[in-house]
């Protein structure tokens, strides 16, 4: 029996996804017919000019936003029929967000910030604590668990955010200009960390303006005016 040459299974699939905003009489087509499959374990970059719809696409991939039309399915299951509550639960279980401005909760310690995603799954306990400690070590932040975000540097804060995004073992990490607020040295460190995570099998989707960063990805999706202009495949 020969193993059929299966294509890498898709984590997510978008077909003819549109996101339109009604601005008075005018319609802003932030996304205008996107067909895209996200492969499991891939490192995908989304690039394009400002206003081309990168963040909009990422928000839809992260279930923070709903398409105006078109279908989006996660692991084969369409999500357009899910209620707000169900979307929240899917976000909590399956998606890891990394933001440009870190977005840690200032009144919580590092440890508490790490536990937030599990808190909403009622999974806080010794287990979650151990996991937070492991991930803190993994991103190079051991010994900072009791600190507040304001006591950390930008790079350290972004490491916390990455660790937090991994707490729920997500299907993929979504990063919107994750290094936009960092100097180039720190940026390189964070990118190295993402490379390592990818090497460990984590699916990463990142929005960036920086071509050097795009080069690290396996595929680059170029957007223009809400459409996919072309897709660049990088051999590894």
């Amino acid at each position, binding site marked *: 029996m020969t193993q059929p040459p299966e294509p890498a299974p898709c984590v997510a699939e978008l077909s003819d996804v549109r996101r339109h905003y009604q601005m008075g009489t005018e319609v802003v087509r932030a996304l205008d017919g996107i067909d895209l499959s996200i492969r499991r374990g891939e490192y995908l970059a989304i690039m394009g000019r400002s206003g081309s719809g990168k963040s909009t696409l990422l928000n839809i991939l992260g279930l923070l936003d709903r398409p105006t039309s078109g279908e989006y399915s996660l692991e084969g299951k369409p999500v357009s029929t899910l209620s707000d509550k169900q979307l929240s639960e899917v976000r909590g279980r399956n998606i890891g967000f990394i933001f440009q401005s870190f977005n840690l909760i200032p*009144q919580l310690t590092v440890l508490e910030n790490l536990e937030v995603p599990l808190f909403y799954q009622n999974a*806080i306990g010794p287990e979650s604590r151990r996991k937070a400690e492991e991930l803190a070590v993994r991103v190079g932040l051991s010994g900072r668990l009791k600190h507040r975000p304001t006591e950390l540097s930008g790079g350290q804060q972004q490491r916390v955010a990455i660790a937090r995004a991994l707490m729920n073992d997500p299907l993929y990490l979504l990063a919107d200009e994750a290094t936009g607020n960092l100097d180039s040295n720190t940026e390189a460190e964070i990118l190295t960390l993402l490379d390592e995570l990818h090497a460990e099998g984590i699916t990463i989707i990142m929005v960036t303006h920086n071509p050097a960063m795009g080069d690290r990805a396996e595929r680059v999706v170029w957007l223009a005016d809400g459409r996919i202009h072309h897709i660049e495949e990088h051999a590894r």
Partner: protein
Amino acid sequence: MMWRGGAQVVSLGFKSLMLHKLRSALTTLGILIGVAAVVAMLAIGEGASQAAQEQIKRLGSTNILIQSIKPPVNEQSSGQSSWSANIYGLTYQDARRIRATLGPHIELMVEVRLNDKEIRVADQWLQSAMLGTAPDYLDVMGLKVARGRWLSDTDNRTLANVCVLGGNVASRVFPMSDPIGSVLKASGNRFVVVGELEPLGRQSGHVGRSIDECVFVPMSTSRRRFGEINIKESGGSREIESVELHEIKVKVDTEDNVAHASEVIKNLLQRSHKQQDYSMTVPLELLRQARESKRRFQLLLFSIALISLIVGGIGIMNVMLATVTERTREIGIRRALGARKRNIIDQFLVETVVLAGAGGVLGLIVGLLFSWAAHLFWDADVYVRPRDPVMAFAISGLVGIFAGVYPAWRAANMDPVEALRHE
């Protein structure tokens, strides 16, 4: 796990509130003042009303009291020294008429006549009131015999020269010995002491005389020996007045008949008295009035409480709206990390309830302290019903929820994308 989650939400609420200590404290103050005011006012109001009701109840809820009062001196007759001005008050005939008219509705009825007398006991002189009355007096007034016996019907029929000593008289005149069988002298008459009452120990009596200070004699004896003339000597002048009865007490059979009976008596007396030389007291009516005024007072308190709590609630709502706006981004982050709308609502509601609850607890403490101080320094009657603090606390919690629902709802219904973009 659920419990852990709940505890975590509460501790998170505390943390967020501690981030703005002054603001949280000021917000709490609004509720604190409201709750403290309610607790203190209820305690003082309830104390005053209970004291009043207690006093009225002591008079007996089925009793009707009629007292002789000296009518105001008429301007025209004041020039001539008139006898008539000094003849006033209730008469034996009034008593007979009341008895005849009300008949079966009367459970007990007693007439009282006070004779101010210098009484000689052994070798002491005693200024006291010889109080002429009927045997029923004991029951009507709720008195108890300490030693010997009370006046009997036979005493009354036979015009016996016997007397019973009020609680304080006995202990003052006969501190050591048994007074029974001793002899008193008043206006040249000898009275044998047949009994002694237990002191009442409180201020209650007739025409300014405490019951404990009186000496009791049968009505018929009083009438025969002392007549109706009282001579009051004050300073250099002597005042002569004639009063047949100083007081009539009617105990009606049931509370339901009190209103009717008092109406009958009023009409009866109005017909036979040309001047207003008597007064009527109906404790039940007073009690009703006291309850009525208490109800009105409570309504007022309730309105004040409501207003202050609404003001406090608006304060909380205001602060919570500001907090929600300020923490828009945090809300976006939490939503992105899997928080359901419900979780966001819980989070902000818990904060509001913690604020209001803290205000409730502190307000309760301040209110109780204030009531206590009012009792200590102003001698106010204070009574805290057990349900009042519970109520104050429940109300503050409710205010918290009412004030918190809208801000929490707003927080939960933000668009996560917008919230994350918020600066």
